[in-house]
């Protein structure tokens, strides 16, 4: 049985607790239908279980004590009571035959983490390879051919086709080449320094280090020798016509193993296999500077639109807290640590969360019967465990924690009393929405609770809901943004551009509208 097949990757993700619903279903099918795989799966878990037990009991400890004795890590914190073995409390403590040894082993192992760093560095780190070839750095009036193919400004683009219905986009290839794509167009990103224009027009600026940037069409290949050119492919009437215009410098046009040099001011046209020279037309191809100018105007318009919308939200009598971050200040709380950074537009700011100390502390004294938690967030990475959007300091019945799970689900927890010693939490998760493809993108995350049902929204669209118990009231009290008190809660790794708590459950229409008015 090959250990490299995809199923074992699923097993790895499953035991780490990061498998998506689809991945779990796929693994489940394999376990159900393949008896031999089922057995191997159990053997794997057997090893995992045994390692856990063996290491904790000290049975497997083999590290030389002399290595450990010679090095003390001053950051070593050890809880001597920690043990993987169940400890029964109540009427007496279980005396473990191996417990003393287990404790010592645990201490030694934990202290050795600092030293272990040297050992581990010897192994080469294997990270998932970066698949991007370009960045979508700017756009104006952009409409995608398919809703599903929409990319956001700032998104990393992997190799594949960009299909624009209308508008224009600025694509920065990793090689440094900058291409303005004008819709309607289909432009395929082939690699970090190559594209294929199926239809539409592009204008490329190629800096010296990216010389050799190539744009292919059905008729010919254009290889840049510095610096600026445009390519247009017209697919009317069944046949394709390709043109290349050289605005500055020189390109090589290769066709049927014949290479022609085309210089500044000259254009070449291939129409039904006939090549002809024309005068180059600067105005027919959108310049990057023009795109940026129009983008800046569009940006200003969108900022103004959001500004009006956010004032309306602040003025809403049910709004309990609203931090629009239009300037580098928090009105109703205090910032600890966080650096300030640019927000959705250059005209506004956002708070950057990077370190374990970063947080915003605030207080909401009101008891609420309904709530909407709303925030424009940029998540740069999701840690294992729970990432905090908002967490309360004092946990009571009706307390609210707003989190992102390690699977990228939005999660609202409501404190409830089920008669256990510790407070229980009723929680509803959304679908997986904060996934890798959305890292680095500004997202409008919102969760509403009307006392009966918790609803999650991504960019104004519902993405999961569930019924919840009804607490006497909802409590926030003193709380933190982007960080939380419990050890299981990890701080946000990203940025927050706006945050609001509204004392009623906003409707889907309202949230969609707030998204439309505020999208960058």
């Amino acid at each position, binding site marked *: 049985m090959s250990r490299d097949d995809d199923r074992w990757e699923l097993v790895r993700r499953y*035991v780490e607790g990061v498998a998506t619903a689809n991945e779990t279903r796929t693994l489940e099918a394999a376990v159900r239908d393949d008896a031999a795989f*089922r057995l191997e799966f*159990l053997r794997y878990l057997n090893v995992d279980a045994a390692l856990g037990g063996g290491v904790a009991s000290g049975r497997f400890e083999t590290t030389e004590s002399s290595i450990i004795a010679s090095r003390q890590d001053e950051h070593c914190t050890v809880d001597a009571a920690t043990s*993987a073995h169940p400890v*029964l409390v109540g*009427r007496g403590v279980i005396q473990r035959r191996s417990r003393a040894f287990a404790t010592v082993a645990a201490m030694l192992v*934990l202290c*050795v*983490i600092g030293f272990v760093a040297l050992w581990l560095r010897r192994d080469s780190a294997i990270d998932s390879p970066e698949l991007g070839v370009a960045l979508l750095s700017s756009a104006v009036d952009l409409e995608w051919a398919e809703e599903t193919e929409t990319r956001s400004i700032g998104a990393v683009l992997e190799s594949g086709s960009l299909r624009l219905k209308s508008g224009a986009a600025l694509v920065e290839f990793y090689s440094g080449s900058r291409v303005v794509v004008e819709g309607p167009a289909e432009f395929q990103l082939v690699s970090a320094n190559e594209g294929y224009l199926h239809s539409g027009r592009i204008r490329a600026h190629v800096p010296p280090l990216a010389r050799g940037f190539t744009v292919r069409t059905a008729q010919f290949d254009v290889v840049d020798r510095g610096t600026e050119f445009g390519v247009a492919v017209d697919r009317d009437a069944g046949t394709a016509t390709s043109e290349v215009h050289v605005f500055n410098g020189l390109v090589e046009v290769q066709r049927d193993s014949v290479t022609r040099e085309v210089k500044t001011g000259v254009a070449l046209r291939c129409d039904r296999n006939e090549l002809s020279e024309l005068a180059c037309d600067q105005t027919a191809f959108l310049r990057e500077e023009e795109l940026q100018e129009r983008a800046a105007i569009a940006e200003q318009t969108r900022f103004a639109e959001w500004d009006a919308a956010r004032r309306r939200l602040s003025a809403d009598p049910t709004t309990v807290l609203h931090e629009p971050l239009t300037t580098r200040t928090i009105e109703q709380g205090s910032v600890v640590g966080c650096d300030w950074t640019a927000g959705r537009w250059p005209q506004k700011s956002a708070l950057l969360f990077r370190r374990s100390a970063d947080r915003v502390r605030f207080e909401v004294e009101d008891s609420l019967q309904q709530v909407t938690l709303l925030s424009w967030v940029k998540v740069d990475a999701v*840690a294992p465990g729970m990432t905090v959007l908002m967490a309360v300091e004092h946990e009571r019945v009706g307390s609210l924690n707003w989190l992102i799970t390690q699977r990228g689900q939005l999660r609202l927890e409501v404190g409830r009393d089920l008669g256990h010693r510790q407070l229980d939490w009723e929680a509803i998760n959304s679908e997986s929405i904060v996934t890798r493809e959305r890292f680095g993108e500004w997202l409008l995350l919102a969760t509403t609770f009307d006392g009966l049902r918790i609803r999650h929204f991504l960019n104004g669209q519902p993405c999961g809901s569930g019924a919840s118990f009804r607490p006497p009231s909802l409590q926030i009290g003193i709380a933190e943004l982007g960080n939380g008190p419990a050890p299981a809660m990890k701080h946000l790794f990203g940025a927050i551009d706006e945050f609001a708590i509204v004392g009623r459950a906003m409707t889907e229409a309202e949230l969609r509208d707030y998204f439309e008015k505020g999208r960058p």
Partner: protein
Amino acid sequence: MEPAELEQHDRFLRLFLLHEDALRAFVRSLVPTREDAREVMQEVAAVLWRKFETLSSPDDFRRWAFGVARLETLEYRRARARDRHVFGDDVIKLLAAAADESQSVFEAERLALEECLKKLAEPQRVLVETAYAPGVRMDELAEKSGRTAMSLYKALHRIRIALMDCTRRVLEREVAT
């Protein structure tokens, strides 16, 4: 604790420790993560201790303990079915049955593990010892070792598979001799 209770406690401990590895492996096979298994084992241990007096004979302990483990696992899965991606009941039954059948093989493989661990290269062995230590957090370990958590997870995965292959070879060798 009173002397009579201490004795009871001792008897329980002896029995529990005897079967703990097998119980843990059984529980592990029915829940996704090690953390899940740890939580279930705590509940299992608590229930077994609470109801220890009801046990008529030490010979029944193993079967009884496995029964409790089965129930606690089901309860745990039920409570988390809403927000965890778990296998369906039918698949869990298949896994439990297969785990039951192969109990002795799995035990032999667990025993062979000690030898196989010694065969690991130093960096791998140290990684196992630190990653499996109680209370260790992968993100901290990642930060301190200058690697990403992802690379550590992948390394541990490869090590487990290597250990699986090794224990199989050890058992085959023992059968041959």
